Structures are given as C-alpha cells and as structure tokens.
C-alpha cells in the first residue's frame, strides 16, 4: 500500500501535528508520553500497523490544532526516536521537526530507583538519564547509575 493511501486512512488535517514513522504498536505509548489523554478537546487520529517500505510496519498520529513543543519532542525521543514530525498549517507542511535523542536526557523523566538521591523532590539539580545504547534504548541515571526500565519511563515523566 502506498504512502498516500496510508495517509488517506484518516483525513488531512488543517492545523496541527503529524507524527509519522512511529514503530508499529508504539502509538499508544507515544500518546501517553505526550500526555494526550481522552479528556483533551483536540481531535486525535491514530492509525496502527500500516505497511511501511522503510519500517515494515508503522503507526501514525495526527493531532489537530496543536503544535508539538521541544519538550514534547524530547519525550518522543524516548519512545520513537526515528519518528518524523511535521507541523501542519492550512493543510500544508509548514515545518519539519527533528527528534534528537541526545547523549543525556535532561529533565524529561525521573530515575525510577526508590533509593536514588533524586527521589527527594526538593533537590534542585536536573534529572539526568544517560543514554548508554540507542538500539535498543538503554538509559542509566547519572547519579545512582541504575539502569532504567524504558517501558516504565512514561510513569516517571517530569
């Protein structure tokens, strides 16, 4: 099935954000990571497990009337670092945003280890998770050195 056919599964949006090339099956995690829940008023379209030449299968999300911020892109990097993000204005791609998984993920998610020094919410230094592997994604807390459960990152977002 062609790229166009994939995109036509849901209607084109006038304004908002299209997140393409999400690994198949990860769209729900992406929504959770972006804090997009059922109680928001923006229309959200989601297609899952559609064929992709590049990836074999992929998910696509379209969020209307909302443009992703850099903070949200940083979060996205933890679930779908190779996704492509386009900002749509008046039915056209106005901007293509890059997702960069930096060597260190700063103030995006907290260390999940219960005896880490960063557990005290009053401690002012940033939460820092070091990327020790990109594929598969592996992260360690800069302070306590504990490896993080990447599936549980969404529960420890800042």
């Amino acid at each position, binding site marked *: 099935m062609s790229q166009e056919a994939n995109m036509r599964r849901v209607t084109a949006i006038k304004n908002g954000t299209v997140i393409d090339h999400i690994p198949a099956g990860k769209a729900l995690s992406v929504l959770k990571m972006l804090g997009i829940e059922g109680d928001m008023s923006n229309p959200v379209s989601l297609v899952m497990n559609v064929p992709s030449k590049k990836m074999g299968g992929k998910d696509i999300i379209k969020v209307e009337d909302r443009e992703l911020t850099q903070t949200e892109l940083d979060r996205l990097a933890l679930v779908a670092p190779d996704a492509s993000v386009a900002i749509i204005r008046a039915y056209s791609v106005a901007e293509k945003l890059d997702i960069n998984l930096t060597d260190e993920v700063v103030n995006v998610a907290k260390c999940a280890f219960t005896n880490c*020094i960063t557990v005290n919410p009053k401690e002012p230094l940033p939460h820092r998770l070091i990327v020790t592997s990109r594929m598969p994604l592996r992260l360690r807390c800069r302070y306590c050195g504990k490896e993080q459960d990447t599936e549980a990152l969404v529960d420890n977002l800042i």
Partner: protein
Amino acid sequence: MPGLITMDDLTNEEIISILDDAERLLPVARGELYLPLLQGRILGNLFFEPSTRTRMSFETAMKRLGGDVVNLGDVKTSSVVKGETLFDTIQMVDGYTDIIAMRHPRQGAAQYACDSAKVPILNGGDGAGHHPTQTMLDLFTIRQAHGTLESLNVVLAGDLRYGRTVHSLSHALVRFGCNVIFASPDSLRMPEEIISDLKIHGAEVVETDDLLGQINDADVIYMTRIQKERFPDEEEYAKVAGAYKLEASDLDGAKSDMIIMHPLPRVDEIHPSVDSTRHARYFEQAFNGVVARMALMCRLLGVEVPEDINEQGVVL
C-alpha cells in the same frame, strides 16, 4: 570539580601512580615522619550515616599531613533533620572546606554532591552504590601482598548485592585483568548492571554459592558481612550466614601467599582463629585506609607527593 565518585574516575595509570604515592607516605601514616603536605587545608567530613574506619581514617590522613578537619557531626543534630537538601548542605560545606569526604544512605548522593560543589568530593559510600576510597586501600593491600594487581584470582564473598565495597572493587580488579569469582547466596548475588559492566570490560564472570570450593585457587579472598536485616527471618539468615564463614581449618589447602581481606566490621564471617594465620590481612587493610586516603587527598588537591619523602619530612 573532579572528585572520586566511582572507580571510573581514575585510569589504571592514575591508580598505580596514587598507590605509589601511598607507598611513599607510609612513614607519615605511621607517625614516624612529619610531612605537612596539606597544611592549611581543611577536610569536610560529611557522614550522613554511621562510619568508623572511613571517617576516622580520613581524619587521621588529613591530620597526619598537617591539615585540619571539620565534621558534620551527628545527622540528628544537623540541619539535615530540618529538611535541608543535600544541595544546600554541600553549598555550605563547600564554602568552609577545601575537600569533602562524604557518606550518604542514598545511592547517587556522591555524584549529586560532586555536581553541586566547587571543591572535590571523595565518595565514602553512597547507599549500595560505590565506595572507591575503600577500593584504593583494598588495591594497596593486594599489591602489598602480591607485588602486582594483575591476573590474580580474587574471590569476593558474602553480600555482593548490597555490599558497595565489592561493587567498586570488582570494577577495578577486572580492569587489571584479575579473575573475579563471586561467591554469594542466591538472594545476595552481584547486581545485574555491575555484571554487565564487568563483561563490557572483557571479564569472564564466575558466580557460585560455594565459597569453600574456591579457597585453594585463590590469591585473595575478600569477605563481606552478611547483614541480618536483609533476610525475612532469623532461620533463613542463620542458614545463609553459616555457609559464608571462614575458620582457620578451612585454609589448609590455600596457597601460602593467599590473603584474606574484609572491609570490617566483621560479625561471624571470619572466625578469630583466622586472625593468627599468615593469611589474615584485614587489620593491615584497615590501617592502609590512612595512606590510601592521604594519597587521594593530595592528588585531588593538586599537591605532589615528593619522591624523596624521607629528606623532606621531619623524623619523629
């Protein structure tokens, strides 16, 4: 400011060079020679949890080198109980001192302090994390006994899960090409992330629950205390602790130069009958904490330990 938080903060060459400095400082540590290399410097001893040897040996090391020490004192009477953050405590002590030695119950506290401070931080133990100054004195003791740190068979035994001394030591040993054998009860095995780190360094990690079976091939047996509070009941503790207990009669087949080490305090894991064997090295090891910490403080404060130490010091 650079500090010593984990053994990764030192290269092998730096480790050897600091151990060489420590070797030269032995007469100063023994009180035979006065050499005030750190005169005018102040060490901040920040022990947020109990410590005897680490705190006292840091204090002795600084004083033997002519420096002074300020102590946090009992945490219960400090501003920590009023809810002060570690960040704020460090900001304060940073202004009072030239170098800080710290122990904290939370893992990662030393790195956190290092990121908060301008003065160097020496990690004296952070939760179940690392204890690199102990590792330096352990390495010093091993080198003293065997003349090398390379290619030795080292058995680390007891509580490997929560024992921070063995976490730091195993990293260092593997970097020097030692064979490390982890002997522990199943519930107290070395944490997975440490095993994974060691494998990255090319180590072949052997894990076993049979301590006695490792004695004859060992060059070093490093015992640790199995803590009662890690077990759900007394009976389970007694069963496990009994299997990690050395007596003099267990050492009959040991190599003549094999040494037994322990970070102390010991409870039952080394029977007093071992103390009088040629293998016992734990009390010398505790003394070596002074020279190792002297050398580390000199290094972190940028003070060179002179080659001709006997000519520069005053004989006492």
